[in-house]
């Protein structure tokens, strides 16, 4: 049984590595820190499926909430609003309390 690496409530950062070709991690969230809201389960990897490969291994998919200021900084429209995106595990790393929240 493969377990998800992150749990609900974990703070995670979206990786900034360049992605060639099809990828479902939007650029505006790269390097941004959010909170895991839900674990959707495992899905085939779209970065492989897009090129007619089987999409294996399957990847855990998480619903991650990014508060507006963590994405747009001081230009955020409203600090209590948020963007929620579904992100695959291989794009996320855990953020511990001492790290700067939004280093890019």
């Amino acid at each position, binding site marked *: 049984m493969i377990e998800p690496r992150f749990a609900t409530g974990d703070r995670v950062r979206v990786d900034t590595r360049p992605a060639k070709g099809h990828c479902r991690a939007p650029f505006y969230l790269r390097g941004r820190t959010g909170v895991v809201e839900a674990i959707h389960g495992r899905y085939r990897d779209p970065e492989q499926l897009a090129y007619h490969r089987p999409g294996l291994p399957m990847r855990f998919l998480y619903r991650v909430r990014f508060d507006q200021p963590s994405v747009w900084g001081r230009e955020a429209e409203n600090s209590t609003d*948020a963007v*929620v995106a579904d992100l*695959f595990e291989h794009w996320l790393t855990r953020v511990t309390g001492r790290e700067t929240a939004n280093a890019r």
Partner: protein
Amino acid sequence: MHDDDQGHTHGDPDPHAPSPDDAPPASEWEFLEKALSALLAECGVIEEADIQRMMNFTESRNPALGAKVVARAWTDSGFRDRLLCDARKSLREEMGIDVGTIAEIAAVENSDKLHHVVVCTLCSCYPRTLLGQPPAWYKSREYRSRIVREPRKVLKEFGTVLPSDVSIRVLDSTADLRYLVIPNRPGGTEDWPAHRLEALVSRDSMIGTALASDQNDK
């Protein structure tokens, strides 16, 4: 030609010209589609009737179907809970709606403190197997780029102004889930039956750019 024709810029096509009797030549994509479907049929992968069945399925999905789901959720709290928990299962077992296998569908519920609005910033992901085809603006670059950046301003342009104590959650459908928003049930409809409530549920209220009550205000 009339004298008042002078107002037109030279070279503009005549807007009143009759359409030609002959259809324009088929595009490259039309040829490709015909060749591919003929080949698939010839090789026995699909039958031609399958294509028609799929077209009928696609056309059977529209906002009215979503409105039935929302009205049921408003009037049946058990169904609402099961819909929020496992939309695919509850839609199939309790409403006879098959949402297909292309993507998962998830329902999210608005409240007095939380408002959801859906976008796909990467392309045009949309709960097509429930609501049908998305509106043109949903696929526009402007909506996709702005709604995550300045949702309140964009919603205001849709005529939707939310109080400051309501938090907005912009759902970016980036992966395998397609989102259906269950809007707030308009006040004063407590004793309304489901079929009457359906008329209050617009397509945009299930995307989150409108409120369900908008229809009723007119």
